[in-house]
């Protein structure tokens, strides 16, 4: 057999018309992907660090976001930032000698503030019992500290909504009628939950005793709950209806995850009992031997019209109060700016610590990538030599290795983003919170960006090493 002389001459490969360009990046990416595919198991192990880093970063920020949302929701539920609360407090030590002059907060304060501070939108005094009262009805007992004598405006300040029956009015108040409006939490405890009864329980007209005194329930607030609790409850309701329509008995008793509402603000609102201030005064306080001559208020809550002016308004309020109280500071202010700042601080801290953990994970992932790239180039010394012999420059090799490293990180990052959903589901399943985690696109973009940067940084050293390899020694290597 002899070689047939080529039909085609090598002169056909004239290079005159060859365009001169640059190594295409797309080509390097393809080479990188093939390399990863060729070592599937190894690449998967390497990616694990990045996957965990990215998914924990996303999951962490989702948890924090959820908590932040819940806190802000709660802040709004109790009246928002415009609400100011003045609480009666003991006469400060340095003013003890003036104790006899201190009358505490009274309705006169309320009138003075109404007259003197136009920036007050609503003002609502409240009188509470010194000890948490015992409620009794339907053969059951319950104690709640949220039992207060209030004016109807209190409903507006606390963002309450009477869903059944009515709020008490001026006549109820002036006659000191034994009537009350309750929250659904009280109803649940004394008259049973609608979930158990199978239908809404509305105890209007029923008698409930407060520390032994009979009261008629004339109204009930709506059920307050966070966004997530509401969703879960509705889901359960649908489930129950389905069971009923299928002719099966709906399950009774508490369901897993129910009544676990992590949000204290909603719990408190649901466990409220309001009666007219005057009723509270006449039925529980005025008859006592040490009773003061006029009602002593536990707190005065008010809402300012313009939050941006709150500092000036607070100063005005304080001045009027000081005059009324002859300079004795037997009251204290509470605003919810503190709470808001607390939320901010909490969110910042949680982000920092969560970010640190995720960062460590990404760092370890980066070391894994660097390690695997170093192993990869020492396996491919000969390949690098061949590529250089046929004309690859150091830059070409550098880009190739760097791209491979980044591709590992990018693939790991994408998997991590997908995996983060499951991490979030897992965390909420293991440790349910009142606040659904919220995965934001910002968090996803940031985490993914980090992964890419980690891939870049991890690839630099191996890429430089590969680019600097001596072509002759690489070609000889085996």
């Amino acid at each position, binding site marked *: 057999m002899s070689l047939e002389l080529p039909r085609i001459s090598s002169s056909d*490969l004239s290079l005159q018309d060859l365009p001169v360009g640059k190594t295409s990046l797309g080509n390097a990416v393809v080479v990188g992907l093939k390399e990863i595919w060729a070592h599937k198991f190894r690449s998967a192990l390497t990616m694990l660090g990045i996957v965990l880093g990215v998914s924990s970063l996303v999951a962490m920020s989702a948890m924090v976001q959820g908590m932040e949302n819940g806190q802000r929701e709660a802040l709004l539920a109790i009246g928002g930032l415009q609400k100011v609360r003045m609480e009666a407090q003991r006469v400060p030590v340095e003013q003890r000698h003036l104790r006899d002059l201190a009358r505490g907060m009274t309705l006169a304060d309320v009138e003075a503030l109404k007259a003197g501070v136009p920036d007050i939108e609503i003002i609502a005094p409240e009188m509470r019992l010194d000890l948490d009262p015992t409620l009794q009805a339907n053969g059951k007992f319950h104690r709640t500290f949220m039992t207060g004598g209030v004016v109807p405006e209190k409903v507006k300040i606390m963002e309450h909504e009477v869903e059944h029956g009515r709020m008490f009015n001026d006549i109820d108040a002036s006659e000191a009628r034994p009537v009350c409006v309750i929250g659904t939490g009280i109803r649940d405890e004394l008259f049973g939950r609608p979930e158990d009864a199978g239908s809404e329980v509305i105890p209007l007209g029923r008698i409930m005793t407060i520390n032994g005194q009979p009261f008629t329930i004339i109204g009930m607030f709506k059920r307050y709950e966070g966004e997530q609790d509401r969703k879960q409850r509705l889901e359960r309701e649908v489930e129950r209806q389905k069971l009923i329509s299928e002719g099966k008995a709906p399950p009774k008793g508490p369901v897993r995850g129910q009544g676990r509402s992590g949000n204290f603000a909603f719990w408190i609102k649901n466990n409220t009992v309001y009666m007219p201030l005057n009723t509270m005064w006449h039925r529980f306080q005025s008859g006592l031997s040490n009773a003061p001559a006029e009602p002593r208020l536990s707190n005065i809550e008010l809402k300012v019209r313009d939050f941006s002016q709150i500092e000036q308004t607070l100063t005005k309020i304080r001045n009027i109060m000081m005059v009324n109280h002859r300079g004795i500071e037997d009251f204290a202010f509470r605003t919810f700016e503190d709470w808001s700042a607390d939320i901010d601080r909490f969110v910042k801290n949680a982000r920092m610590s969560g970010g640190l953990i995720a960062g460590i994970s990404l760092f370890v992932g980066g070391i894994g990538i660097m390690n695997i790239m170093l192993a990869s180039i020492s396996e491919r010394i000969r390949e690098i030599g061949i590529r250089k012999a046929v004309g690859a420059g150091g830059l070409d090799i550098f880009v190739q290795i760097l791209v491979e490293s980044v591709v590992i990180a990018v693939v790991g990052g994408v998997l991590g983003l997908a995996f983060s959903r499951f991490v979030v589901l897992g965390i909420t399943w293991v440790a349910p919170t009142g606040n659904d985690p919220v995965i934001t696109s910002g968090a996803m973009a940031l985490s993914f960006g980090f992964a890419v940067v980690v891939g870049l940084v991890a690839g630099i050293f191996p890429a430089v090493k590969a680019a600097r390899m001596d072509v002759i020694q690489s070609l000889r290597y085996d």
Partner: protein
Amino acid sequence: MALLELRNVSKIYHLGGEEIRALDDVSLDLDQGEFVSIIGPSGSGKSTLMHILGCLDSPTLGNVVLAGTDIANASARELARVRNRTIGFVFQFFNLLPKLNVLQNVELPMIYAGIGSRERRERAEKALEMVELSHRLKNRPNQLSGGQQQRVAIARALVNNPKIILADEPTGNLDTHTGELILALFRRLAAEGRTVILVTHNPEIAAVTPRRIEIRNGKIAHQVDSKLAGLDRVSKAPNEGQAS
């Protein structure tokens, strides 16, 4: 003017304080279309000479002039470019990339020349047609015989249309018959006007080239150029008494 000139080229290595002159003051002219063999025993400096001729390495001393340009002190980047455009390599162990198929292996030099994918494919197919491997485009190197692999390597060496083909023991791993086919291919390439340089330790293989350069201890010991009929151009190194 010669295509490739070496002027007083030395390559000196230092091993533990000892100086090794892998090439010692070598001067050499290679013209376009020449078919040359470089022969000598193991350790004589053949590979070192080939590395310098192939722009894989720079000399310690002396000048390397390629088509009128001195590249003795060129940067690694410039040398890579010269290798890519002007020189094609054929190695004893083929040096194909095992993970790439035949076509992709042949396309490799064009990737670094920045040639677009369609043209890359066309040219690679042409080059493979030339070495009669059009039917094995999608095979991996390990699915081919030694002779076929070496033909792929030759196609790869040719695909950027180089002026110079450098082959280091190209038949060293092939049986005699296959080796002859490969040598015929090289002869053909030289006939088409390429400078083909064959490095070998085997005098029988060197015998196929019109011009033979014998290296000993890093020096040119003996040169024969049968093209210069009658004259039988012979040169002897001054300090080397007996050339074989």
